[in-house]
């Protein structure tokens, strides 16, 4: 029962006839720290990125929104727990419900789960330590706006940097997600095997990233935005942003 995102995804502002340069919003919470990296990545790809302050509530003019990594509100209580109540998150829920494209990265993933825009939750790494290292990502479903440009079978080498990246959802939810093609990326070894050894945090089913049932909201723990230039170690992360741009162009 797999449908491609292009069939199901509702209209976005990009459809209303903007040029081919897309405008990305990058949310800024107190404690966000990969916000600059997101802007940097989008600019490397030749598109526009704008910061959106957590007290703002205007997102309508944007083509897509990135929820960046960091430690919003110090990650006190639970990662992402406090950020989800900021004004911009109310608007983001609306934006997403209207079919806007949203990509959460690291802390952004945690926030989107806390906000209920994505299923499941992220808990402490099983090592109980922060993990900073490059990992390989295998793409599970190539048929979404976030994965369509990723070459079939290609592994992406991208860094992780998190202390609470262990994805959890109950079995029922997981089966549903699997059936819907909502599991987008899994941790893999250098030769593409999805197995425990490759998993930096203990996530169930080695999940690194997922999307919602509508396939317009996705998130992952690794940092594709920190892997968009060979000079800093890898440009594999570009594939995710390219997917979205390609998808938005096709819709435009």
């Amino acid at each position, binding site marked *: 029962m797999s449908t491609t995102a292009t069939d199901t995804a509702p209209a976005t502002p990009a459809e209303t006839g903007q040029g081919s340069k897309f405008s990305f919003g990058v949310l800024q919470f107190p*404690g966000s720290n990969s916000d600059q990296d997101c802007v940097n990545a989008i600019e490397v790809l030749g598109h526009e990125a704008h910061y959106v302050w957590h007290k703002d509530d205007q997102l309508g003019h944007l083509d897509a929104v990135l929820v960046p990594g960091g430690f919003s509100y110090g990650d006190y209580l639970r990662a992402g727990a406090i950020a989800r109540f900021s004004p911009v998150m109310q608007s983001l829920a609306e934006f997403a419900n209207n079919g806007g494209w949203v990509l959460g990265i690291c802390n952004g993933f945690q926030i989107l789960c806390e906000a209920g825009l994505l299923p499941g939750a992220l808990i402490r790494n099983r090592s109980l*330590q*922060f993990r900073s290292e490059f990992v390989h990502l295998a793409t599970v479903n190539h048929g979404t706006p976030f994965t369509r440009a990723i070459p079939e079978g290609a592994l992406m080498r991208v*860094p992780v*940097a998190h202390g609470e990246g262990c994805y959890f959802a109950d079995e029922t939810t997981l089966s549903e997600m699997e059936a819907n093609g909502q599991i987008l990326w899994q941790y893999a070894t250098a030769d593409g095997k999805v197995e425990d050894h490759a998993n930096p945090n203990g996530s169930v089913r080695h999940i690194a990233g997922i999307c919602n049932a509508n396939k317009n909201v996705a998130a992952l723990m690794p940092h594709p935005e920190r892997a968009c230039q060979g000079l800093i170690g890898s440009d594999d992360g570009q594939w995710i942003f390219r997917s979205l741009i390609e998808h938005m162009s096709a819709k435009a």
Partner: protein
Amino acid sequence: MSEPKITPELIRQHNLTDEEYQLILEQIGREPNMTELGIFSVMWSEHCSYKNTRPLLKGFPTRTPKVLVPAGEENAGIIDIGDGLAVAFKIESHNHPSAVEPFQGATTGVGGIIRDIFTMGARPICAVNSLRFGKLDSAEVRRLFRGVVAGIGHYGNCFGIPTVAGEVYFDECYEGNPLVNAFCLGVLRHEQIARGAAKGVGNPVFYVGPATGRDGLAGAAFASQDLTEESAEQQRGAVQVGDPFMEKLCMEACLELLATGAVAGIQDMGAAGLTCSTCETAARGGTGIEIELDKVPQRGPGMSPYEIMLSESQERMLIIVHKGREDEVKRIFDKWDLPWAEIGHVTDTGQMVVKHHGEIVADLPAAKLADEAPIYHREAAEPAYLKETRAFDLNSIPDTEDPVTDLNALMAWPTIASKNWVYRQYDYTVRNGTIVHPGSDAAVVRVKADSLPLLPDDAPNRNEPVSEKYLAMSVDGNGSYVYLDPYEGGKIAVAEAARNLACSGAVPLGTTDNLNFGNPHNPELFWQLKEAVRGLADACSHFEAPVTGGNVSLYNQNPKGAIDPTPTVAMVGLIEDPAHITTQWFKNEGDLILLLGDPVDKGDVFQGLGGSAYLKVKHQLKKGLPPRCDLSKEKSLHDALRGWIAQGVVHSAHDCSEGGLAVALAESCISREKARHTSELIGADIHLKEVPGSRLDALLFGEIQGRIVISISPVYLGKVLGQAEILGLPVEQIGTVGGQRLSIKVGERSFEWGLESLHDSWFNTIDRMMQD
């Protein structure tokens, strides 16, 4: 709430001598009250006044045309990196707090040094750390190690600064007294340099950041009974807890405020918090300052003036604002939801005046407090132990019979083993600037437009493109060498840092150092300090790497005695062209391996074994003469290497340090980490000539200085050897890259190591030891 009477006992508890107390009486012409005594005691502590080390530090080279702000003038020195850009960097210790509470001690150490950097108006872009612990087989040492690393990680990760390099040594001399030195580097435009001076009489003084609590009061070693009614525990003060989230906001707000031009002066509240920041800014501004403590945000009720003035609560800043522009402070700090308070103003009296409940509780001459602390020329005497360690005869130990086992043991020795257990807990990719990650000789980061602090909205250069810059950094300091020969050891610490930079392709810009030593009242320990500083100074001059600042941490001892004298040296260098960035691992099958520098010292074939890792691991000895350091040879070696790198010849460069040539070769084969559990291993076939009179252990594991292993494409061999001959540099082809083994032939003898097992013992030893 009456203040206690000043008694000799109280004076002693404040670590002030009778002479110092007399000097206080002379300076202020009356008896100080309790608060004033506290203020003097912290301002005249070694930490703030450098009273024991100032005369020594004068020997450091501090100026070159590139130095924009020299050492000692502000919170950190600043160096020009061209195109209107500059870097601010500094190292600082948090040894004692980390011994008490490793996690919080380390976090607050990182927080403190980051504040020093953004106080200069710079945006911090990376952090580095230098750590020393006792031996890892002790559970207590593991607890400290685990806590410190987690703390450094926590602060940097949350703040959002990549921790890109560092070093860790384990030696029993650090048992009970770990060293935690944290370094931070920031970047800014020349016109963005901020000053910590209270300028402009009448200008308001703001306090920004979280409320003041009784944090860190224990440092003042004070226990008076009737100061407050609180519990004894609270009087002693609480361990400082770092809040990286708060500091991140504080930095963003400060940089935003600095961009408005409303700031006349800015100073962080570090050691001795409000005391130090008020009197230092007044002293620098040639002004006075008056503050009202009732306006200072306080975490609990009933804090005394003494406590408020001496609190070391973290993440607080003092900002002097041009009169009439107060609203900008309020607007920006409200935007970031940060507490602020206007607590006083700049005066023309030269006095630091502190009021509480309408009464003056301190009225002291600011400049005298800040700049006229007593200076001591301590007595120095060559330590007696040196006679014995120097007399050690290497002939008394047999040569190695089993280099295969010995190299395995060295690779698995925690000081040499990979520190991935450490840096995998540090976010080193945030800010999209890290080009060479931890794991090579030096880290390399780039400076790009978003590395810089904000510009004012109307700045003419606001939309000008920024040309990317590449900075390399390394921190080094082998305490055993310094213990065995403080002067040579000091030189080597600097030479090794410079060599690591050269291996990455960088030219040194400047140095910052942390002097971790024992009690300066002990003439032998002071001699160590004096000699080491002389060595550091000579070497820094030689490499044209001026000292831009640093930190002194004395009284590092455990019940068994002082730590090995440990200056840690962090050096920063510049790489002009990203194509020149070089890493330490072998890359291509068929590349030739060259050794730059002599395999052994022909004059003294044992040289390099004294003080070596090999001697410690195999013979449990910390003895002998450590290696000599020939500064001019080193310098020409680095210059030549950079020349070859610039010509595009060099595929890898790795210096020989702990463990000597064999360890350097092994690391070049196995240290390339591609991803989690994915290292790239590549073999090497080495053939070394036997040196007459030399021994195998000296050749393989000796640590003589000035040696670098490089790999090049075969087509360049003639070119390199030819140029080396012209330069008079010893360079030899010693092997080729390739295969799945490391094989070393020495004359007729041949030794082999499988890469998998070499890698396993090097890469996983610390991880395995920490699994408990």
